[in-house]
């Protein structure tokens, strides 16, 4: 299957098969004006199967959350049809307003204007905890 080359844009490659939709939703790619392609179960020499997201347009989006959702993702920046930058995303120190605390006793469940902030507590195990109640962040808790 071939999805056309993009001239200027962002390609998220090596997404673990099955995670593409999660990333699409989390980054709210459905709300963009430019063309976005989500390719699932593409063949990959390294991974067997993988998902790929192609965004046609050099838009300014915060990709830090990818470090939490899938640290193996490669971010390729395409300029004039060429890859000008290729990088992995490091784990962010804090994740703000992307994950929702799932502890029903957390103050964030009643105090609406509070930001939902999670802090990196254990880099090796990729553990983030709510700054208010210290509940561990789960991938399923994406707002």
């Amino acid at each position, binding site marked *: 299957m071939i999805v056309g080359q993009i001239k200027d844009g962002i390609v998220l490659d090596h997404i673990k098969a099955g995670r593409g939709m999660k990333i699409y939703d989390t980054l709210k790619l459905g709300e963009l004006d430019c063309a976005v392609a989500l390719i699932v179960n593409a063949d990959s020499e390294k991974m067997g199967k993988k998902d790929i997201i192609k965004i046609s347009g050099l838009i300014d989006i915060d990709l830090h959350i990818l470090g939490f959702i899938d640290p193996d993702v490669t971010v390729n920046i395409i300029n004039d049809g060429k890859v000008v930058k290729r990088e992995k995303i490091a784990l962010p120190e804090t994740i703000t307003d992307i994950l929702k605390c799932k*502890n029903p*006793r*957390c*103050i*964030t*469940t*009643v*105090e609406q*204007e*509070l930001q939902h902030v999670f802090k990196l*507590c*254990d880099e090796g*195990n990729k553990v983030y905890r*709510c*700054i*208010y*109640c*210290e*509940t*561990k962040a789960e991938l399923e808790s994406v707002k």
Partner: protein
Amino acid sequence: MRSIIDIMDLSVEEIDGLLATAEDIIENPKKYADACRGKKLATLFFEPSTRTRLSFEAAMYELGGNVIGFSDASSSSSSKGESVSDTARVISCYADIIAMRHHKEGAPYVASTKASIPVINAGDGGHNHPTQTLADLLTIKREKGRFNNLTIGFCGDLKFGRTVHSLISAMSRYENVKFVMISPDELTIPDYVKQNVLIPNSIEYKEVKSLEEAMPELDILYMTRVQKERFFNEADYIRLKDTYILTPERLQSAKDDLCIMHPLPRVNEISVAVDDDKRACYFKQVLNGKYMRMALILKLLEVEI
């Protein structure tokens, strides 16, 4: 300006300082009788806890200060929908220091980020209760004379028991402390306590089901209540609440200098027949709590004696 939300906000040295102040208050109460003259403590209890509130209020009165506040959410402006953030800002205009109890975890932290005066967490849901831990530490200091080389048994609800988690964290900073966790399978210590505290600090601990089996080796036995409000299901509560009850018979194999602690209130997990045993320290713990709250108020208000 400092707030105390978690016992780990205090360094070992700072805790030593608070213990020294508390012991000096015990020795020389008159010296402190006017220490907080003209200062006001606001006790903001969004969730009723008469015991903790009275301890804070008694502490402030014994320092010569005054107390304002409310004892449950219905008599506060939160019943009109005011946020914790706004309450913290408003109370900052009236008082010099806040002691806050709230059923939502993290509420005192939120208050501390908005208030212009120190905030003491007086208990937030199942999360933190640092002044209880300070009471526990003063009790251990006065009863055992040391924080090193102790085997501490925790019995009962170790899953939801926040006082247990905080004391484990605080005691993990001392040398050669061993823990024996005594609980039913349903109420064992959470994984995060193991992963965040016990494993990184290479603390020796074991998990057992029998109180009798653990008893002979313990220097301290910390009993806890199986709290009804932590259960979502009444049947689970009734099935588990009587699992671990301390009786004089069960104490027969215990050391002569065992120190029996309990954060109170108790329901029936320590039989009243144990109260007259010289090893029962849980009422001393209550008194120690007041002295440590006095020491903490002095520290946060930066009062020099």
